[in-house]
């Protein structure tokens, strides 16, 4: 016989009850003659203050039976285990759950990071083209539209990648009147060069930068980055909050290090084929990597999308052949035209 206190879930009034176990059921009786029997399957442990046992019923919300903790052994046969970590984890145990969770998490992040690399080449180019057109359109007012300048820009692309501006999968290159030093490959074969990347460089370095972006386009790195961002990137941001901030950083860089190395290798090969000196590109990269933090307005955007290291500049420098007779990437007249590509329109900030 156990003394207990019962809340019926109808009012907050407590009732003194006596509790016994009969035929696998909980029998409740009261002085006035009231009695009740509860099937064990309906009983559920609830949270109680220390030293107490609180039982609830799955069929009656608010029904609570309060007993001293000493009653536990007597009722043990009727009660399931107390829920601790959550039903799934209670079933397999904490340590196995941690191991399984850890392995699953590592796999999800790993696959989410690697898989886009394998999926991207199989995404139809037309999808990427549609998405790119939907997002960028014709760039509206910010595009620099000087015809001679545009021609020179396309000539430069043709120089490092012959035939690139023709055909259905043509590279569509545009100069944008945006006062940030940057160049980027966008979905659908669009390559954009921001004004300072033209006015503050030279034809050979710009050729290196363009060849690098063409490399991203040709290897489907843009698609790869999109899949990564909207796949695992979104998943981590959704659930992990603060804990996953570091994990997110690993996957949300627009391109992976491998992507960058591949685009660099393409760029070096393209410059060599076009007989353009890689040195100006190397100098530009060295310069940009050195001024990190000093002139953020100038370099931050470019560095964010193209994390630079001294090593990358060195690779370009190493491909320099002192015996070669390099040709300038553009003639003086062409470079003049390109430098003026944004000139026709007053600067818009």
């Amino acid at each position: 016989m156990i003394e207990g206190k019962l809340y019926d879930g109808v009012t907050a009034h407590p009732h003194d009850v006596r509790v016994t176990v009969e035929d696998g059921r909980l029998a409740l009786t009261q002085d006035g003659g009231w009695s009740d029997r509860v099937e064990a399957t309906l009983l559920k442990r609830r949270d109680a203050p220390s030293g107490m046992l609180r039982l609830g019923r799955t069929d009656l919300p608010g029904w609570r039976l309060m007993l001293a903790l000493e009653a536990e052994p007597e009722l043990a046969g009727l009660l399931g285990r107390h829920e601790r970590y959550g039903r799934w984890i209670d079933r397999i145990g904490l340590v196995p759950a941690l191991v399984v969770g850890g392995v699953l998490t590592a796999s999800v992040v790993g696959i989410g990071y690697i898989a886009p690399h394998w999926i991207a080449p199989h995404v139809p180019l037309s999808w990427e083209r549609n998405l790119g057109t939907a997002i960028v359109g014709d760039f509206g007012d910010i595009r620099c539209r000087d015809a001679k300048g545009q021609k020179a820009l396309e000539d430069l692309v043709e120089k490092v990648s012959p035939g690139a501006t023709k055909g259905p999968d043509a590279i569509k290159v545009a100069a944008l009147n945006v006062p940030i030093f940057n160049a980027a490959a966008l979905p659908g074969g669009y390559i954009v060069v921001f004004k300072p990347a033209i006015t503050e460089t030279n034809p050979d370095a710009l050729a290196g930068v363009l060849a690098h972006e063409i490399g991203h386009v040709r290897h489907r790195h843009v698609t790869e980055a999109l899949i990564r961002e909207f796949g695992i990137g979104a998943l981590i941001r959704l659930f992990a909050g603060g804990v996953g901030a570091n994990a997110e950083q690993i996957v949300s860089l627009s391109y992976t290090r491998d992507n960058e190395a591949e685009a660099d290798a393409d760029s070096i090969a393209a410059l060599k084929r076009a007989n353009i000196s890689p040195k100006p590109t190397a100098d530009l990269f060295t310069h940009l990597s050195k001024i990190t933090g000093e002139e953020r307005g100038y370099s931050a955007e470019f560095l964010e999308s193209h994390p630079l290291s001294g090593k990358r500049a060195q690779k370009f420098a190493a491909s320099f052949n002192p015996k070669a007779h390099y040709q300038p990437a553009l003639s003086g007249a062409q470079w003049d035209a390109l430098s003026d590509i944004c000139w026709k329109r007053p600067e818009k900030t």
Partner: protein
Amino acid sequence: MDSHHEWAAAGDDRAIHFTGNWREYLPIAATNALLIICTLGVYRFWATARQRRYLWSRTRIIDDTLEWTGTGKEMFIGFLIVIAILAPFFLFIQFLFPALIVRGKAEAAGGVLFLFEIALIYLGGFARFRATRYRLSRSWWHGIRGGSDDPGWNFGGEYLGRYALVFMTLFIMFPWATTRLWNSRWNAMSFGPLKFHANLDAEGLKARWALIYVAPIAAAILAFALIATLGLSGPNEGGPNPTLGGAVIAVVLLIYIAIPLATLHWYAKFFRNAANATKLGNLEFGFGASTWDWLKLFLGNLGLAIITLGFGLTYWGYRNWAFMVRHTRIYGSVDLGDLTQSTTHAPREAEGFADAFDIGAI
């Protein structure tokens, strides 16, 4: 047995107590942290449920503790429901915004962003209401729970309207807006058959709010006076003065400290007034935390996290709850026979909206 047993809530002993201790909570904090990390954050819904179950079960009101019946599963599902509703919306904006910018339609992009912000403020208010309602619906005492029959859509609108005025008046109307919103939200809530009655006004809160505007100015004047004296007595006249540089940093720091302190000073009084102005049936509330108490809580949280290299973060929820309970007072009486079961509808989406917008319920 009396069917009308009355429990005096006031008396020489306090009606509400926190009986937990940090050692007892340690296994929960540690395993929660481990499981959250190992599941890429998915476990956090279950972690929240476990934390609340512990904290509620260690919060004693008169003769019995509270009980939290919310589950990790329902919070997880609630979160997924909300994400399913919001994701297409966010995704659309994410593509629309750059598409407009890149086409040089900056005004249209600005308009889209403006509408987006408005929607976010509305949903923020709605989320806060729903989170309060959800928490009450999962909080039990003596086998009785709380809740609300108001879905909160109108509250979202009121929230948006009042905040629009707050922004337009450079936050001068903030005390007015928050106090009215406190009333609207709590007047829609109930526990069992008892309605909450909140009658808070901005009276007594205006001076402290003005202080937030005055504090940085006063700090700046003080600091400039300091610079003036230091600058005049500086060793190298004309050239760059290191003391002057230090003083400028001091000004900035002072302003950065003065504003949060003045804000905290305001919130301390806001919560004291709000508790005083809120009733539940014959029960009245009080809240005794001073600005200094709040400051100790926040600095304690910060210090704990630093000393334990981050593990202390897992105790923030515990410390905050214990702080709230320890400073809360309940006076009056409750007729247990009249405290019947709540007939309100319990929301299914749990705290999904509040979670999506990272908003608390208090």
